[in-house]
């Protein structure tokens, strides 16, 4: 464990943690839009600025990318940090004017009017959708394209992605909810592609997932079997009930079940 000082409070942090993780665990609030606990931090949104003093040197850095170090001092709300954060927030709002998340953050920091020219974008370019799809879901259907201010996070060439499985994780994780995702009774629409949902092998009702997503899950995890995953929640409960009933009646034993 490493000891660091956050706003004059001594915090015990793990060696592998970043300042943001340690602060969050200790109950401090740092605004961050591109941070997700299960992804490696990339420092895209720049909102989590803090003042870090390490070895006698003080600088302003993003809390999500700075690893903790013994004796480090962190200040979350110095006037300079707030000033820089307001600037970054102003630029984000100028880029994406109609986002409720950004408006809420601005209200918290006391940012009233945005002087920069307002754009018409809906994406804040945090890259979470690309990272979750690549690192966690394993579909790798999205990519970062272009550079500088023209960067976009879309499927390759802006076309309907071939490897997308329609899991909807990108739409859920997006901090400004800018990805169109439609989860209907029997289909899922995302990135200009329509997926049919798989159907329950017993009652024929549509399941929660597309068959592409189920195939992906099966290839990544051995524990997933067709008889579990291709049966809807209601039917699996019924099967459990049936098994229990048979055990009580004495028609079935645990030996027969193989448990």
């Amino acid at each position: 464990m490493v000891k660091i000082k956050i706003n004059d409070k001594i915090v015990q942090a793990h060696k592998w943690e970043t300042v943001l993780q340690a602060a969050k665990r200790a109950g401090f609030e740092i605004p961050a839009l591109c941070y997700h606990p299960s992804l490696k931090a990339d420092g895209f949104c720049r909102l989590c600025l803090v003042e870090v003093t390490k070895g006698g040197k003080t600088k302003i850095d993003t809390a999500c990318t700075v690893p903790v170090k013994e004796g480090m001092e962190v200040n979350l709300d110095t006037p300079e940090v707030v000033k820089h954060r307001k600037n970054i927030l102003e630029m984000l709002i100028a880029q994406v004017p109609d986002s409720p998340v950004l408006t809420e953050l601005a209200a918290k920091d006391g940012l009233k009017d945005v002087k920069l020219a307002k754009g018409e974008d809906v994406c804040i370019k945090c890259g979470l959708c690309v990272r979750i799809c690549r690192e966690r879901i394993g579909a790798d259907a999205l990519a970062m394209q272009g550079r500088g201010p023209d960067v976009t996070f879309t499927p390759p060439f802006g076309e309907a992605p071939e490897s997308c499985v329609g899991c909807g994780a990108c739409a859920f994780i997006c901090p400004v909810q800018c990805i169109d995702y439609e989860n209907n009774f029997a289909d899922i629409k995302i990135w200009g592609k329509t997926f049919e949902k798989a159907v329950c092998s017993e009652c024929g009702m549509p399941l929660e997932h597309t068959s592409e997503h189920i195939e992906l899950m099966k290839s990544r995890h051995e524990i997933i079997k067709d008889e579990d995953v291709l049966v809807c929640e209601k039917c699996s409960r019924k099967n459990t009930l049936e098994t229990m009933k048979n055990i009580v009646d004495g028609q079935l034993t645990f030996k027969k079940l193989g448990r």
Partner: protein
Amino acid sequence: MSKTFIINPEKCTGCRTCELTCAYTHTVNNQPGISRIRAFNTKPPMERGVPIVCLQCDSAACVEVCPVGALQRNQETGAIDVDYERCINCHACYSACPFGNILIEPVNNRIAKCDKCGGDPQCVKFCPTNALEYK
């Protein structure tokens, strides 16, 4: 070893008090529809209910399949708890559960599962016939 649920189907009358208790403990508006425990009424000749609740499996499919590690065993209670900060709502655990014991809250589309009420399950306390035990 942590305590676990013991279900006695022969004692259950299907009164569904456990469902109500769960709804009052876990949901904001006390909706029994999203209770983590379900008492199923079986058809004749048994004509009883059987409470079905998460079994907190030792090698759990939901834990294994979660792409972000949001489902983890709470060492104190032995229950598998959901870390909603990590969860990305892909519902893989919902499909993977062989018993159908993870449900999706229709209100906010998030998953919900039994967390043993943090080690003090309320449904057990209110079960009038001791069909549910916790030991």
